[in-house]
């Protein structure tokens, strides 16, 4: 490799390691992200043409502004951001690793001079006694020191929270982990939806942008859907679907209610209550009693439906309405006897005795109307989501460690000063200097006390 080549590579390396690039990429990401919040994303061409002229539309489309968070330039910025983050960490990490695992046990005078928290005393006595006393002092006030000797001087070194230096790198790593989780989710997961009418079941779902359904290896039945409101208001209180999951002919989840904020998960697929709507027509629930008998049959029928009774006579629902003039809900039925002529009967929900007075062979009661709904479920599979949560947890831990914990180091250096012992106390913290200064001032007093006692 020639000198020039190394120069270029070195420059590239410095570029990717620089904090200025970090600030540039963070601010660029912030500014460009605004575009997608101002221009609505992923609409159809027609919808955009209502707002923009053909020319503007083409320009914005070329720039991928209509799906900007997946555009090459936005992804490019994210990649640049990640490369910068990785390079910065690679560059600085070995140094930090060294400080943590190979601490400066016997720093030279020049190095010690660079620390601003210092105290120095000269005391009577011999090295061994003072060393013993200082060992006790550090162990009691701070943490147990390591003792080393170099060129006639004794060095005591102790530190606290040395691993807090890794906080920054945990935070950086967490961002990469979150990206990894998102990528896994994008590759191996999917988002889809499915509409199931009450009483119906499905064994396939529709992907958000796909035309063909995706089969799933179990089936989901919607037993019931209901929507409730607060009092008489239009403010919804609850959307509830009751779901049953059938896997290979076996009921594995039986009538589990799901509501918004309480989804159902089975075999990695999660079903979320998302929407609802009317499924087909309304139905009426009728009770049929044969005159003179005790037995009552309940029937649920849609408009135009016909049902055969035990006697062989048939009943057909001709029509019903939720409000017939001022009489409330009513249904018009046709009784079709096995032999004989058809008759038309009208029943009212609010007047249950009405049909009894007709003195017919059957007594009908209109119990209720029911609107059949379908429930709209969002279906997702995201195997990456746990990696994302792991990354998020690490990010919070990393931030807290990086911001609020500090690696504090204390040295005590003893040297022979013409028969007396010179004792130097030096302290350093890798962050929060003002806080450490206060701590060190107190430590200084205790240090002097410890040396003064005899």
């Amino acid at each position, binding site marked *: 490799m020639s000198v020039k080549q190394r120069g270029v590579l070195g420059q590239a390396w410095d570029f990717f390691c620089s904090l200025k690039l970090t600030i540039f990429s963070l601010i660029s990401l912030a500014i460009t992200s605004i575009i997608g919040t101002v221009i609505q994303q992923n609409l159809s061409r027609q919808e955009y043409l209502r707002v923009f002229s053909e020319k503007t539309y083409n320009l914005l489309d070329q720039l991928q502004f209509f799906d900007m968070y997946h555009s090459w330039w936005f992804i490019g910025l994210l990649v640049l951001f990640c490369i910068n983050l990785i390079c910065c960490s690679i560059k600085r990490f070995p140094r930090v690793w060294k400080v943590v695992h190979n601490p400066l046990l016997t720093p030279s005078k020049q190095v010690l001079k660079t620390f601003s928290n210092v105290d120095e005393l000269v005391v009577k006595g011999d090295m061994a006694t003072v060393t013993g006393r200082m060992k006790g002092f550090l162990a009691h006030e701070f943490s147990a020191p390591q003792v080393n000797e170099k060129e006639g001087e004794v060095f005591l070194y102790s530190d606290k929270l040395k691993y807090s230096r890794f906080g920054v790198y945990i935070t950086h790593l967490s961002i990469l982990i979150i990206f990894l989780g998102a990528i896994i989710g994008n590759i191996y997961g999917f988002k889809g939806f499915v509409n199931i009418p009450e009483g119906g079941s499905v064994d396939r779902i529709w992907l958000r942008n796909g035309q063909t359904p995706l089969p799933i290896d179990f089936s989901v039945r919607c037993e019931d859907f209901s929507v409730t409101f607060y009092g008489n208001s239009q403010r919804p209180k609850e959307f509830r679907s009751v779901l049953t999951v059938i896997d290979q002919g076996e009921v594995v989840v039986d009538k589990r209610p799901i509501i*918004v*904020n309480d989804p159902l998960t089975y075999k990695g697929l999660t079903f979320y209550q998302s929407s609802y709507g009317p499924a087909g027509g309304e139905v009426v629930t009728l009770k049929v009693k044969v005159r003179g008998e005790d037995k009552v049959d309940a029937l649920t029928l849609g408009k135009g439906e016909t049902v055969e009774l035990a006697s062989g006579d048939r009943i057909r629902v001709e029509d019903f309405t939720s409000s017939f003039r001022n009489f409330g809900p009513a249904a018009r039925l046709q009784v079709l006897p096995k032999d004989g002529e058809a008759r038309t009967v009208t029943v009212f929900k609010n007047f249950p005795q009405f049909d009894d007075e007709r003195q017919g062979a059957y007594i009908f009661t209109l119990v209720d109307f029911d609107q059949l709904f379908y429930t709209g479920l969002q279906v997702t599979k995201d195997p990456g989501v746990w990696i994302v949560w792991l990354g998020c947890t690490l990010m*919070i831990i990393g931030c807290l460690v990086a911001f609020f914990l500090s690696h504090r180091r204390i040295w005590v250096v003893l040297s022979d000063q013409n028969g007396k012992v010179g004792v130097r106390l030096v302290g350093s913290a890798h962050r929060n200097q003002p806080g450490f200064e206060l701590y060190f001032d107190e430590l200084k007093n205790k240090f002097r006390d410890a040396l003064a006692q005899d």
Partner: protein
Amino acid sequence: MSSGQLFNFVTIGYFAAMILFVGYLATRSMVVAKLATLFAYVGFAVQTYAIGLRWYETYQIPGGAGYAPLSNLYESVVFFSWTILLIYLLIDLRYKQKSVGAFVIPFAFLAMTWAQLRLDATISPLVPALQSNWLTYHVITCFLGYAAFAVACGVSIMYLIKVGKEGDAEDSPAGGIVGIFPSAKILDDLNYKAIMIGFPLLSLGIITGAAWANYAWGTYWSWDPKETWSLIVWFIYAAFLHARITRGWAGRKAAYLSIIGFAATIFCYLGVNLLLAGLHSYGG
């Protein structure tokens, strides 16, 4: 007395505290500063009680299941001003820089005034999407973060005024109102401390929001304008944190970033709801 009436007293209390803090800048009298702080404490205590009372009131409306009062714009603005006071009082306890009050209390006062005069204070029971404990975690973490950024913004404004008046010559401290400002070094440190508190809280706010979205809709991130703006705010403060350790970016530029960050925070909080379309339309 209803929570609404109590919130009026809170507003008046913060107004008094604000005027007194400005008075302190003019008079340099510690008595005035202490009185201002007293008003801030009393206002905060009453507001705490009033928020509790409103919580109780949500159980009293017919058919209501009760909820933590953090669900609509009014409730969130009131809570925002409460969190500003909380963070401010914590910083005041620790650093005792009274002049900071004049630049932070106005945010709390403006929020309360806006809420009391212009916003709909009706208690309405929660729509299904909001019936989740994540709502509480999400709102509390976000707003504590926002409040820390409000304090940082106030301090940054002080920093810019201070260095603007003094120039770069550290040895000729300016007199007048600026004279009782903490030194530029302390202001810069306070700014950093406030963002140090705010940044993990904002991150936690975004994460709890993502967790909630994942639980309710099955997507933890969908580039909805609110989500995107919270990320923009996160980018700006991340840039701030790195700017402070970069030569040529510390000091003034960092202070500007802090102010821009808070402006983005406010846009994320209000602008997105009032100007852009998305999932976070308050009040259902």
